[in-house]
């Protein structure tokens, strides 16, 4: 019974990591860069949804759509202003820029919304829990898992079937060759950021529905853990992000429940180190062949 309870808690936490990891993996897979500001775009999305619900009295679905719209715009702007000029720069420069962007977003949020934590309002997402015998599953968990599956399938179909999706895969495979074939690389990468950021808004709403405290640093720790999940599952692989996220959540909860609550975070990051040592490309990552 306690085992099942913990398993459900783990799935619930893991599904949150998974949905954030999808954003990381999507951008990494196509633009080949680690967008460390992703966690903070999530935070901005959550704040916009919070404002929609709390101040403007919007219905939840409209508030989420508003958050998606703002985040999409934000993602494209960040990409255009900060990352595009560095397209030819070393990956280290881009990484540092992303970290800088992350702090910039946190401080902007601090300016606009202040430091006092806000509690995310109740919506249909965190309604009554569902009870099966003694077990209870919060409705936020069910929504998160559903959203994960829908997004994963939609993203897989999008990259496999649509013209833009094909362009994305081409850019991912060989940026130079894609450009020679007449693919607009900048537009493709912009589009990737637009999708990734819209997903961030959804992740933000789901994150804050499960853990309803909203402050400027809300996105950073889940962001780092989700990044771990993305690496665990194989960064760049969409199903990998999903599996990595869920597994990491279950590992974290089991570690806390059966080893020690004090070591929860340590266990999560130990997993990252072990994965990098044993299987550097992650569970579902494609092996990279180095040309010598």
């Amino acid at each position: 019974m306690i085992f099942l309870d913990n398993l459900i808690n783990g799935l619930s936490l893991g599904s949150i990591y998974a949905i954030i990891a999808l954003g990381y993996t999507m951008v990494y897979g196509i633009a080949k860069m680690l967008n460390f500001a992703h966690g903070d775009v999530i935070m901005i999305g959550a704040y916009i949804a919070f404002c929609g619900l709390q101040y403007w009295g919007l219905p939840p679905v409209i508030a989420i759509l508003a958050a998606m719209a703002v985040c999409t715009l934000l993602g494209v702007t960040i990409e255009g202003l900060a990352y595009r000029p560095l397209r030819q720069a070393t990956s280290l420069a881009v990484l540092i820029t992303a970290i800088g962007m992350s702090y910039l977003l946190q401080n902007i949020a601090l300016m606009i919304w202040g430091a006092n934590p806000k509690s995310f309002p109740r919506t249909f997402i965190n309604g009554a829990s569902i009870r099966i015998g003694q077990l209870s599953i919060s409705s936020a968990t069910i929504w998160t898992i559903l959203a994960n599956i829908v997004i994963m399938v939609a993203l897989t179909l999008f990259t496999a079937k649509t013209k833009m999706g094909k362009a994305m895969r081409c850019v991912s495979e060989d940026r130079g060759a894609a450009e020679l074939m007449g693919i607009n690389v900048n537009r493709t990468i912009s589009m990737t950021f637009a999708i990734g950021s819209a997903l961030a808004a959804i992740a933000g709403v789901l994150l804050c529905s499960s853990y309803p405290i909203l402050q400027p640093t809300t996105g950073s720790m889940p962001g780092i853990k989700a990044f771990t999940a993305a690496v665990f599952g194989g960064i760049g692989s969409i199903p990998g992000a999903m599996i990595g996220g869920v597994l990491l959540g279950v590992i974290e909860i089991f570690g806390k429940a059966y080893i020690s609550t004090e070591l929860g975070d340590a266990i999560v990051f130990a997993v990252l180190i072990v994965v990098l040592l044993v299987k550097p490309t992650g569970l579902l990552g494609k092996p990279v062949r180095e040309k010598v």
Partner: protein
Amino acid sequence: MKKVFALLMAACMLLSGVSALADEAVTLKIAHIGPTTGAAALYGLATLHGAEIAAQEINEANGAFKIELINEDDEHNVEKVINAYNAALDAGAQMILGTTTSKPCEAAGAQGYTDRVFFLTPSASSTAVIEDKDNVFQICFTDPNQGSASAQYIAEHGLGTKIAVIYNNADVYSTGIRDTFVAEAAEKGLEIVSETTFTDETTDFSVQVADAQNNGAEIVFLPMYYTPASLILKVAADKDFHPIFFGVDGMDGILGVEGFDTSLAEGVMLLTPFVATATDEKTVNFVTKYQKAYGEIPIQFAADAYDGIYILVAAAEKAGITSGMEPEEVCDLMIAAMQEISVDGLTGSMTWDESGAVTKTPMAATIVNGEYVFE
């Protein structure tokens, strides 16, 4: 040499200027240091506003003392608090009302110990705040007292015997209260059935709550600030787990979180010396003025700081502090005076010993219909 000179100066002033000074009110320059921005801003603003109300009352009364309040922001940060402390002294502060939160207060108090600056903290409650420092005094309970007082309260009022404790093991405030709570609980025959921890970054409390629930806890003791507490209440509600949640002063403020579903906090108890809905004359006067000035109901921290200004004035009167007296000189006089005075304030009757810890009776409030009520 400087000290001797200062003493001589003081003696001369006393001999020659007594009659002249008596007519003119003494101006006390008091610096409030607390987090008026940052994660703990709710507390820093409360202590600042409470102090402002008291200062205004004293200034309007045209008595023997005038208060000049200086405010410095420490952002609840152990590095920034030193800057705030230096800025306060540069601005001419003679004594410090602060700092609001424990960790910064330990840092600033230690610096003040070296520099000989007097601190009266409204709400920093860890032992380390006053430990090995003769210059720091507290208005609130020291953490050990909060932990043992909570255990005493629970045992005396028969709230239950099976207790779960969830605490932040990265925070001295939380661990300090937990330690004495556990020790006192054992003496009172209360059984700790579950004990789990978390850190500052934790947002998922499902394991901690499940452990308390599966071990049949009747009371969950939460020695922490309100942010993690609000997440614990949410998880417990999702799991349909309804024990008595018992918090300490850090729980105060949970009802002020924007967007918080206050029904989650229904029935939560907390150890507090002040409840804004109490009907005694002092409380009503303070709450009315506070609401008029800042548009919100004061929390305990505000009441502590309000008392703080009055305590400083009472001690300054006893010590014979004069306008423009240097902080080093003020410090030693205030330390002696604090141990002699007894102040009957908003938060109870208080006396101090040389350790700097306060003595007063513990009281606990319950949240009913979104308001704190004394049983």
